[in-house]
């Protein structure tokens, strides 16, 4: 008997039992089910289902994941030996770099999927509904938005929290208010702030290296936030210490090309704006991601960046201000550093937690970009705002939609009034 027939018989055998959802989840992973259309509806259906939709998002994320694996190794070795940065392209795609990625990043992916899907299966069995596909994407997003040195136990705790509180308590995929991946990220940030912020966690082993070599694993945003402060870099091989500022040091280490291509420290998958834009192209071309949200988020961020640039140009904020560094960052540079691009393309476009009307999507995306840069500049503890901005707008998305839909309702009411007047 064929595999197909065997699985079919098993499905019939377990139908109606507690374990049926768990079995079906695996079965439908292998085979598109034999379900046919029901009475009272269309007799044919389009080819897309939720699995296919989610699968496209995962495929759009794969380049970022692979890049992140190489980058984990590259940042590690470049932190030890700065001269590697002189020829990025030659020193980036090496097996040594990839090996660090395999050792450090793959476990994040495995733990994220393992723990998350376990929670999903348990809930599906308890509540007797099918295992829904939402976590396929969440499970891939999570390792890409955490720092490479995140301990696996922390990640596990956060994933359990995020899936249960962020999603399952609302009723599962499609019912949640907050983006589960960002709930997980926010949990990590607020539960373990000393670990999750600062300049240690972004580069593999930076904690240990720092004591001996005074090497910083600072992110771009970290450098810019402190751009005016003095920084002492230990001279290599016994040379004299170099005294510089954070801002100068950043410009010395990373070119614009580095920032755009992603050869900078940061969360695993967020650094390469170039690959994120390729992901965006895939999402938009396949009509899976909303181009309205992506575009308006970038526009919103650019507008906020421009406003801050103008504030600096008008001398309202002086160099002594602690906000000066990031305010003075050129507006388009804001788009290439930090998590903005990744958030705008992969997180803001989550259809469940985002705005659902086309008009609402413009407003929602714009505000995400706008508020991201605002939080990034004004948050003294942690110079990044994308995940907070998206979570905030997740909460406001239903309100935005409400007013958009009310516009339609009003139009309908007016039509009646004109008639009766």
């Amino acid at each position, binding site marked *: 008997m064929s595999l*197909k027939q065997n*699985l*079919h018989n098993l499905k019939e055998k377990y139908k109606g039992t507690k374990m049926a959802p768990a079995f079906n989840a695996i079965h*439908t*992973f292998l*085979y*598109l*089910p*034999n*379900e*046919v*259309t*029901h*009475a*009272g*509806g*269309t*007799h*044919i*259906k*389009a*080819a*897309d*289902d*939720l*699995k*296919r*939709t989610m*699968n*496209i998002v995962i495929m759009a994320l794969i380049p970022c994941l692979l890049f992140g694996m190489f980058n984990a190794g590259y940042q590690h070795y470049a932190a030890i030996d700065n001269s590697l940065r002189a020829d990025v392209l030659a020193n980036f795609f090496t097996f040594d770099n990839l090996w660090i990625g395999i050792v450090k990043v793959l476990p994040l992916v495995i733990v994220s999927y393992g723990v998350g899907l376990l929670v999903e299966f348990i809930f599906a069995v308890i509540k007797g509904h*099918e295992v*829904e*596909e*939402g976590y396929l994407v969440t499970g891939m997003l999570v390792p890409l938005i955490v720092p490479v040195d995140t301990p696996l136990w922390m990640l596990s705790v956060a994933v359990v929290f995020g899936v249960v509180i962020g999603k399952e308590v609302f*009723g*599962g*995929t*499609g*019912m949640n208010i907050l983006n589960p991946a960002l709930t997980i990220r926010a949990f990590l940030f607020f539960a373990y702030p000393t670990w999750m912020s600062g300049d240690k966690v972004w580069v593999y082993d930076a904690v240990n290296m720092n004591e001996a070599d005074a090497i910083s694993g600072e992110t771009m945003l970290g450098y810019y936030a402190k751009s005016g402060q003095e920084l002492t870099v230990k001279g290599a091989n016994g040379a004299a210490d170099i005294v510089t500022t954070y801002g100068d040091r950043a410009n010395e280490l990373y070119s614009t090309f580095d920032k755009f291509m992603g050869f900078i420290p940061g969360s695993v998958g967020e650094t390469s704006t170039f690959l994120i834009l390729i992901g965006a192209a895939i999402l938009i*071309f*396949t*009509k*899976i991601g*909303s181009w309205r949200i992506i575009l308006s988020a970038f526009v919103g961020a650019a507008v906020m960046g421009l406003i801050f640039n103008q504030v600096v140009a008008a001398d309202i904020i002086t160099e002594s201000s602690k906000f000066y560094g990031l305010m003075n960052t050129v507006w388009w540079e804001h788009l290439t550093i930090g998590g903005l691009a990744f958030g705008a393309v992969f997180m803001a476009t989550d*259809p*469940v937690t*985002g705005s*659902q*009307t*086309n008009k609402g*999507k413009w407003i929602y995306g714009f505000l995400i970009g706008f508020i991201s840069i605002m939080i990034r500049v004004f948050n003294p503890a942690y110079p990044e705002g994308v995940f907070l901005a998206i979570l905030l707008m997740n909460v406001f998305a239903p309100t935005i*939609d409400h007013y958009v*839909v009310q516009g*339609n*309702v009003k*139009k*309908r*009411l007016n*039509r*009646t009034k004109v008639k009766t007047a």
Partner: protein
Amino acid sequence: MSKDIRIKKGLDIKLVGVAEKKTTNSSQSSVYAVKPEDFHGITPKLVAKEGAEVKAGDTLFYSKSDERILFPSPVSGKVTEVIRGARRKVLAVKIAADATQVYKDFGAKDADAMSAEEVKNHLFASGCWPFVKQRPYDVVANPNQAPKAIFISAYASAPLAADLEYTLAGKEAELQAAITAVSKLTEGLVHVSVGANTTSPLANLKGIELHKVSGPHPSGNVGTQIAKLDPINKGEVVWVITPQDLVVIGELLLTGKLNVSRTIALTGSQFSKPAYVTAISGAAIADVTANNLNDDNTRIISGNVLSGKEVKVEEFLGYYDNQITAIPEGDDYEFFGWNKPIFNKISTSRALTFSWLTPKKKYDLNTNTNGEHRAFVVTGSYEEVFPLDIYPMQLLKAFMYKDLDEMEALGGYEVAPEDFALTEFVCVSKQPHQKIIREGLDLMREELG
């Protein structure tokens, strides 16, 4: 002033099995059936008892809510069986047809000379009233409420739909008589819409407001046309009649006979020769599709693939239908069907689905759902195929949680289940849109009247 209707949002689903323009007479069935469930929202009161002899046009049952609305026998013969379901609900009245048909004579009428009241009474008496349907709610029209307009769509855009230009050719006299009569029932206009560049027999009628329609399906849905021409507001009613039913009314007026025979399109890949046949409403599917149908694991649909009703070969043609579609059942598994590239199915996305490369290709779709039922997740896809000025997902959700105020405010009066056929087709979550809309409309009708 006639207004043309041009829509951009929508989707033409191109399927294998377009009916060839050749009509044969199907052999007369030995048994016909009238099913009360074809008339949604009607509770039947039986008149014809088992064993009674009826002529074509004699009443079989009437509506419990309005005794004037009669439902006639399509053929003459003997009532052989009344099939009942749970709680003695009447499912079908079966009539064994006579070899030679005898028609009840309602008398030829001159439509021009009739008053509105006379037209109404004539339609009641002859059992033609059920041809008049109303929006809101998509049910047989309530005769006590005057319609602000009457809409007739003579442009069929549904997948594989019967070509009305072909099936109604030569029926100008009947159509004109019917239009003259029904136009007396409204103080408003009688809107008739035909395809652009058409030679439709309806294009040159008198007393109508002619509109030319272009664009993808659902441009031919009467609901789309109402929304574009004269949307329904709260408290208003419009009436809707299909052109093929107008022909029946016209023939009744001209000859005094109720002749519910029509040209039926046999379509879909499971017909060996998709073509047209003439048949009487309620005919046995087996007789209409004789020697043409491949009945091996086949879904037979009375109507089109989007809004038609599933029937078995031993069942009967729907009362209003002018199309039978037969497509393969899809009750099989497909290995990695959810992630491999798809070339043989239609999709509006490009998620490794390639139907966008071949917009002219005709597909042989089966009844597989291509995925499991899920909560609403994806947004924005319905809007692409939904031309009405309504938020489809928001309305569906309001219909699901049964908030009457919202159902009303979001446009519940303006929709019929068939308007949500395309959104159901493209739905990634495989939600039963038309069922949701039907149940919601029934609730609105019950609570709001």
